[in-house]
């Protein structure tokens, strides 16, 4: 019989990848115990601290809501207006870093070692990374943003084609239409995906090729060395859990409000907290089934279903609103994006601060605060790809899909606004009054079969939340189990439920807005984290056999 300690030790690795030598053993700090029939395998102290800190913050937002709202209401604009240049500059660095990796010889490094083969097909992989990372935003902003940038925010000083009295100023139409699409695409194409790609690549590289546990702290090994297994690492991981859970919980709360607004607009369902709590419970319930069925049986299946429904909706809008005009918009939008992306991403000396600080800096902070979660999820499902394949698939292809989506939904909406400004529901909901949750439904209203497509729209909003919620629960569970991906089932049930409860508590007590501001505030420290990750990736790739 083998000696147990012998089997547990990590021997000298062989094979064509550069494993980092460390005495740390995955799960060494974990507490393995049983509470009643529930088995537990949790990291000490990351699990306990993140749980307690989350409860403390929710309590703060609920007990002194006015003070919390004041503080965070001040914090968010203060950060985005003071550090706008820093966010823009950093995002540009991430894009350049990724593009350089594609063409550099390091692109040939394979994640998981030289002989690894991909675990997932391109479609399954793509569906999962897309559904986790962005799906919901496309539903929310697909109509809102292009119309808003065309008519209201005036990026780079391009004037609005809509006069004060609601008439169209013909001379401004063409330039504004181009800019509406370009300025939206800028927020959804290369930059956000570069942010996700950096985090995902760092985690995949240090986990699959270097043999370190799949948690955020592993990417910091080249910087902190053995200290990442101590408090330095505990803090990094706790911050990641914190950003992920609050990001998900606040989105879940806002998502329930959106879905409720849509249901009210179409079916006259009452818009109140009870309906929203029921929606959160339903979303959490489906997410729970999904995490219980696991990565392949739940998350992947739902993501693929989601992709199919989204594709159908996209095709419907494309043909219902006039494929020729819209494909023209796509080509024009792509051209405009490529031409304007440089001035739009210029961090210094800008006059259009409303657009730059109110939208761009806000988006960058938001994407960055979501990056630990989305990045870790992408990392988990991307073993076996080369760095070049990886970045192409995480950066270029999602960017093109987002450009197409924005051209179709935004193009159709802009068309409606410009062709009939007085009767356009989109103009009423976006330009005249500002009702973001209704913008999508307002656009669908003017197309045929509005009752059916709007219902599909609501279903998509809900399922996209489920796919973010289930993958988020898997990520939090892995981090709080010290990088173990096979922790007992009750733990992921706990996180999934906890997320729903936090959302319900904040919905009833108020404070969703305050915590969203809090999530965005974590974007600033995480920007530094990401910059450090670029350096870590570079060091890590240098040591890999190609």
């Amino acid at each position: 019989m083998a000696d147990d300690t012998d089997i547990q030790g990590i021997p000298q690795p062989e094979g064509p990848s550069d494993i980092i030598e460390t005495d740390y053993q995955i799960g060494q700090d974990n507490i393995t115990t049983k509470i009643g029939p529930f088995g537990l395998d949790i990291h000490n102290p990351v699990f306990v601290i993140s749980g307690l800190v989350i409860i403390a913050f929710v309590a703060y937002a609920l007990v002194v809501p006015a003070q919390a709202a004041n503080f965070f209401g001040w914090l968010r604009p203060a950060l985005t207006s003071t550090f706008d240049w820093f966010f823009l500059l950093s995002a540009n660095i991430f894009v350049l870093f990724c593009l350089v990796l594609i063409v550099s010889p390091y692109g040939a490094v394979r994640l998981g070692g030289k002989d690894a083969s991909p675990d997932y097909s391109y479609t399954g992989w793509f569906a999962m990374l897309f559904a986790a990372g962005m799906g919901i935003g496309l539903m929310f902003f697909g109509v809102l943003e292009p119309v808003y940038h065309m008519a209201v925010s005036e990026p780079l000083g391009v004037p609005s084609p809509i006069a004060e009295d609601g008439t169209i100023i013909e001379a401004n139409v063409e330039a504004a239409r181009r800019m509406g699409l370009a300025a939206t695409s800028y927020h959804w194409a290369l930059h956000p995906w570069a942010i996700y790609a950096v985090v995902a690549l760092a985690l995949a590289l240090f986990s699959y090729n270097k043999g370190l546990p799949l948690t955020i702290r592993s990417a910091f090994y080249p910087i902190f060395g053995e200290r990442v297994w101590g408090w330095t690492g505990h803090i990094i991981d706790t911050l990641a859990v914190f950003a992920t859970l609050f990001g998900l919980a606040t989105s879940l709360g806002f998502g329930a409000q959106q879905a409720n607004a849509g249901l009210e607009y179409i079916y006259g369902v009452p818009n109140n907290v009870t309906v929203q709590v029921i929606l959160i419970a339903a979303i959490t319930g489906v997410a729970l089934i999904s995490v219980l069925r696991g990565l392949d049986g739940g998350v992947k299946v739902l993501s693929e279903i989601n992709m199919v429904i989204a594709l159908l909706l996209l095709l419907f809008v494309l043909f219902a609103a006039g494929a020729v005009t819209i494909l023209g918009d796509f080509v024009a939008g792509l051209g405009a994006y490529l031409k304007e992306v440089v001035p739009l991403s210029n961090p210094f000396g800008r006059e259009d601060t409303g657009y730059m600080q109110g939208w761009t800096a806000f988006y960058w902070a938001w994407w960055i605060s979501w990056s630990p979660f989305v990045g870790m999820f992408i990392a988990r499902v991307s073993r076996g790809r080369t760095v070049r394949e990886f970045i192409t698939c995480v950066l270029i292809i999602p960017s093109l899909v987002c450009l197409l989506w924005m051209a179709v939904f935004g193009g159709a909406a802009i068309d409606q606004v410009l062709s009939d400004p007085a009767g356009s529901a989109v103009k009423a909901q976006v330009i005249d009054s500002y009702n973001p949750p209704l913008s999508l439904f307002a656009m669908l209203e003017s197309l045929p079969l509005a009752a059916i497509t709007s219902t599909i729209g609501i279903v998509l909003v809900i399922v996209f939340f489920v796919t973010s919620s289930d993958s988020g629960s898997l990520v939090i569970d892995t981090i709080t189990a010290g990088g173990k991906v096979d922790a007992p089932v009750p733990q992921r049930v706990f996180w999934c439920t906890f997320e729903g409860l936090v959302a319900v508590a904040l919905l009833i007590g108020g404070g969703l807005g305050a915590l969203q501001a809090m999530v965005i505030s974590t974007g600033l420290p995480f920007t530094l984290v990401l910059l450090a990750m670029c350096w870590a990736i570079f060091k890590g790739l240098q040591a890999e056999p190609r």
Partner: protein
Amino acid sequence: MFKKIMTPVDLAHLKDLQRSLKCSADLAKLYGAEVVFVGVTTPTPSSLAHTPEEYAKKLDAFAEEQAGALGIKASAQMVIGHDPTTDVDDALLRATRDTGADLVVMASHMPNVLDYIWPSNGGKIAEHAKCSVLVVRGT
């Protein structure tokens, strides 16, 4: 009566598997059967190994050592599961087909109330496998 006995092992919890290991070895000797030790691992680093390749080596070493110590013919097969928390049963069921085993000998925990919601691995394999399954209780 049996030619190939499949015994799932979790290298991290060998202490809990003593009875099932002994049982499969005894049966193998009785019928002159070969034992295939099947281990499920993740593509991500685990407490046991940095990579699946490393895990496979450990599993091979374990099978060799068992063969030497107990005087049986033994081999090892590694199965990769993306999410073993939920798909270890499916991975093991695949392995019963791939190895061509005609008997599975595996350990199971004591049943408790949670088994009504999440059936135990042993229970699920006994239900779905085409071959005979012996579930060994106790440690």
